[in-house]
């Protein structure tokens, strides 16, 4: 994958597959400590200890059509190649938290890429999930929560062209303003 935002999309897809109803994606830049932290938290079905131990193995997958699952090992390798770390916390019925930490300035750190596109893909693709995204830069945080938006829309589809326009601008300006405050 060419972007960290694509890894987030992939990990969030796992959360959806685990029947999560609430999924929170967090991206925090800290240029003082030189850290980029990414986290995907869900309230899905979780995993037992045995499965958790094997999950970073590229030959483990929950899918039934093909026997290899590469998403998590790829993300783990990306973090570890950047002087970072990777962690998964999970228990059956307790949901899952995937955390990846990167040395922000590391030469091999992939660009974040199009976070807005990742978020919009998830919002549109899985409207029954409650999505929250927190994007932070040195303590300034843009928090996106789709619940008030869906409430306000009252049955108008998220794929209505005017709503798509709103979502794109709302998320882009939120991300931009967090970055602008710091530069």
């Amino acid at each position: 994958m060419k972007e960290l935002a694509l890894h987030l999309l992939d990990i969030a897809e796992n959360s959806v597959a685990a029947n999560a109803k609430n999924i929170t994606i967090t991206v925090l830049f800290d240029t003082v400590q030189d850290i980029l932290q990414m986290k995907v938290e869900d309230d899905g079905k979780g995993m037992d200890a045995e499965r958790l131990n094997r999950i970073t193995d590229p030959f483990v997958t929950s899918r039934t059509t093909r026997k290899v699952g590469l998403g998590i090992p790829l993300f783990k390798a990306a973090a570890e190649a950047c002087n970072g770390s990777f962690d998964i916390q999970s228990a059956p019925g307790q949901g899952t938290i995937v955390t990846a930490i990167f040395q922000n300035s590391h030469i091999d750190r992939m660009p974040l890429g199009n976070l807005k596109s990742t978020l919009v893909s998830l919002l549109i693709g899985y409207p029954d999930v409650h999505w929250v995204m927190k994007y932070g830069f040195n303590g300034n945080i843009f928090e996106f929560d789709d619940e008030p938006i869906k409430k306000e829309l009252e049955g108008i589809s998220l794929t209505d062209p005017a709503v798509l326009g709103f979502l794109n601008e709302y998320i882009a300006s939120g991300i931009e303003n967090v970055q602008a405050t710091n530069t």
Partner: protein
Amino acid sequence: MSKVKSLEDLKRVREEALKKQAAKNTASKIQIIIGMGTVGIVAGARETLKAILDFIEQEKLQDISVRQTSNIGMDSWEPIIQIVVGDKPKVSYGKVTTQIAQQIMQEHVVDGNIVKEYVIEIQ
């Protein structure tokens, strides 16, 4: 610093959407499904989806539902999109780049003609 869009803006968006809904005639409902498993993502499915959403926004298409699925099961054909118009059979398209997605949106979704050269199956 750009102006942050607020939920007040959303109220206006909703009112406009409601007006259009009242005005339009009853077109058949269109469903678009895109495969967004790891293989699909690596093959560019997010950009394909973005091209579809941009097309909907620019052409102001109403009544289209867009959904994701984790895995369609034909990896070598990713990115894959499936289109269902009303009660017609489901058409699966393979290797859908952003350009092909725009072409399919215009020819299949808007004009109602299946784009045969990219079809992998019709079921």
